[in-house]
């Protein structure tokens, strides 16, 4: 960041404050991105406000109201042991959003630096990181998840770590490939030729260039992570019963598609909307952040 006005820069680099405002201006002109952001914001708010909302206890059971269709009393109906689906949806938003976001944060924070290092430094660093990535990719996700749960005990946190670790290789690969592509660009080559320092090269040319594909991948991975949380719940390694998450609700609901379609409808719709929201937002950001876009 110190090299903003570095005279040795061979290509014009926009200065930071101006760029930020430009990004925001572009984002504001994109209704799809705003809509996506609104959807995500809505669910985040719901998740945060869950303890304050006037709703039933999500774990309270009612034997006389098992798998009841939506009614005035239960707006979204009840589940397989007579719990309020609406309450569980609201509380489940916490678990599902956390599972999606935290695991992607883990994957990005570990994966991108490794990928850039591999692509930038090349040689032995690249070889080592690439080999480890390949080894990680080849290890079945389930073995990793079960092993983690075995060491640390089954919980939502450990599920997020497992999902994050298994999503990491794709970020390493993308960051590496993108770094390697950027390195062949003329302006980077000339910047290297005039002796720009490594740190400056990475922050000024490489990171801005690898950011768009990483962001696109991250938004897609949030979706995968929310769904992966469901699979892990099913294996007893995710959210622990009786606490809800959308994924685990959907997993149970698939056994009652005929008898209680609402049990699957709401968590399914919520997952769909939130994934769509993240993607629209990410897409808008991608366009806004593209340094080559004027």
């Amino acid at each position, binding site marked *: 960041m110190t090299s903003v006005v570095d005279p040795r820069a061979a290509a014009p680099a926009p200065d930071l404050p101006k760029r930020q405002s430009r990004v925001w201006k572009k984002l504001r002109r994109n209704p799809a991105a705003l809509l996506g952001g609104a959807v995500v914001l809505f669910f985040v708010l719901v998740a945060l406000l869950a303890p304050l909302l006037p709703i039933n206890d999500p774990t309270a059971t009612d*034997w006389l109201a098992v798998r009841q269709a939506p009614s005035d009393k239960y707006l979204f109906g009840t589940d397989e042991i*007579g719990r309020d689906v609406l309450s569980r949806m609201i509380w489940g938003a916490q678990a599902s959003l956390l599972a999606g976001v935290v695991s992607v944060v883990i994957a990005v924070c570990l994966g991108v630096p490794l990928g850039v290092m591999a692509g930038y430094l090349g040689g032995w660093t690249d070889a080592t990181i690439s080999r480890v990535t390949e080894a990680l990719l080849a290890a079945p996700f389930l073995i990793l998840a079960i092993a983690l749960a075995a060491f640390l005990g089954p919980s939502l946190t450990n599920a997020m770590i497992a999902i994050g670790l298994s999503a990491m290789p794709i970020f390493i690969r993308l960051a590496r490939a993108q770094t390697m592509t950027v390195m062949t660009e003329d302006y980077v080559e000339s910047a290297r030729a005039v002796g720009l320092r490594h740190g400056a090269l990475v922050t000024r040319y490489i990171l801005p260039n690898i950011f768009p594909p990483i962001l696109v991948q991250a938004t897609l991975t949030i979706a995968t992570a929310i769904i992966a949380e469901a699979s892990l719940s099913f294996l*007893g390694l995710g959210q622990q019963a009786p606490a809800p998450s959308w994924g685990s609700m959907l997993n*149970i609901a698939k056994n009652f598609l005929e*008898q209680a379609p609402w049990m699957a409808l709401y968590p399914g719709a919520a997952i769909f909307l939130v994934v769509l929201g993240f993607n629209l937002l990410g897409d808008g950001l991608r366009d806004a952040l593209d340094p080559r876009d004027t």
Partner: protein
Amino acid sequence: MAHTKKVALALAFGLAAAGVTGAALAQDMRIGLQEDPDVLDPDQSRTFVGRIVYASLCDKLVDITPDLEIVPQLATGWEWSDDGLSLTMTLREGVVFHDGTPFNAEAVAANIDRSQNLPESRRKSELSSITGVEVVDEYTIRFSLDAPDATLLAQLADRAGMMISPTAAEAAGTDFGLNPVCSGPFSFVERIQQDRIVLQAFPDYWNADAINIDSVTFLPIPDTTVRLANLRAGDLDMLERLAATDVASVMADEDLTIEQAVSLGYQGITINVANGAGADNPLGQDARIRQALSLSIDRNVINQVVFEGAFAPGNQPFPPTSPWYNDAYPVPERDVEAARALLAEAGFADGITITVQVANNPVQTQLMQVVQAMASEAGITIELEAKEFATLLADQSAGDYQASQVGWSGRVDPDGNIHQFMTTGGGINDSGYSNEEVDRLLNEARTSTDLEVRRASYNAARDILIEDLPIIYLYHVTWIWALDDSVQGFVPYPDGMIRLEGVSIAE
């Protein structure tokens, strides 16, 4: 597929006309299983689902009726000596194994020897009472015992009594399961793991007249919804273990029928009372807390909520429909007040927290969440620990648990449901329970051939166990089969097996 084509051809040429039943048609029966069976060697096999395949593949010395009477299969008759120390069996003549090897007393002796002495055999404990086998003549065999064993005939009605071809067993060794050769109504054709097991009718079967099907294909389809969808789509002729919650919709479907039978097994909560350090907590040490837990549970509501009333609530190792059920202790009503009083008496008037491990499948988790909600009303907070089965089993066996939701698939003889669980040092006594009087009573019940003596022993043991509660019994599974309307002659058995004798597919 090849067989389906044959059926179609047969139909096209009008061979099916004039109500010709069974044998004239080339019929393939497709059966959906809940799991993929393990190794297909009766001596090495361990799963319930494997036994369903054996029912078509391997005949046993004796069989059971739906009422659990022992009836002839490969043995046509048997006789106990007066002291109960020797059992003489007369064998069916003219029976051959699928590879043509004749079935006779020598073959039986070889089979018993393999079950007892193959190092990998899982049948050793089931046949431990047999100390000598004597080939009297070609079709007579005599087993001598070190002590009377009331359970032996029932063991011979299951995997321990399955006869495999001695020639094939000799040649294949422990790999026998890759290409099993028995003497049942169907012989092995092929197996693709997790996909299918194909058997075809054995033309030289001794009871071939009762077999109306030309081949049978077992298809493991673990997801209950998908299994039912396959039946509805016509890709299956029948399936086992229909989800209890699907019974109503199958009954409403006029193309399908339902058969059911209360199983021989049970489901409950095993409590660690003396299996290592895991027992060192109030639940394990104070029977009053276990009684309070049991009293806090409404078994009828569990049955209604989780199983739509299709299963049987229970409080003993035998279902209420069993002749061994002790009527002195009917399934208890829920009594939250009494539960609270017991807790207070034990010094936990403000409530107590316990940890229960549960297998991470949706149904068992649902069950335990219901129990959790019920117990909380009595002041017992249950922390659920979902584990995948291999971990659950290892922790349970090692005593690394407080309480564990598990069950037992059930055995024909009552001994199989109780002895190894409740006697000191029993092979599967994960609870660590030990009581000299119970040991004495259960051993007595095992060695007596007098039904009344046995019943009295089990009842006396029950008097003690219902107080000590090392296992809180909750319910008994009902086996539920869903069949296409065209399948006729299927008889439900409480052991959950699918016997294809007399079954046909109408057209």
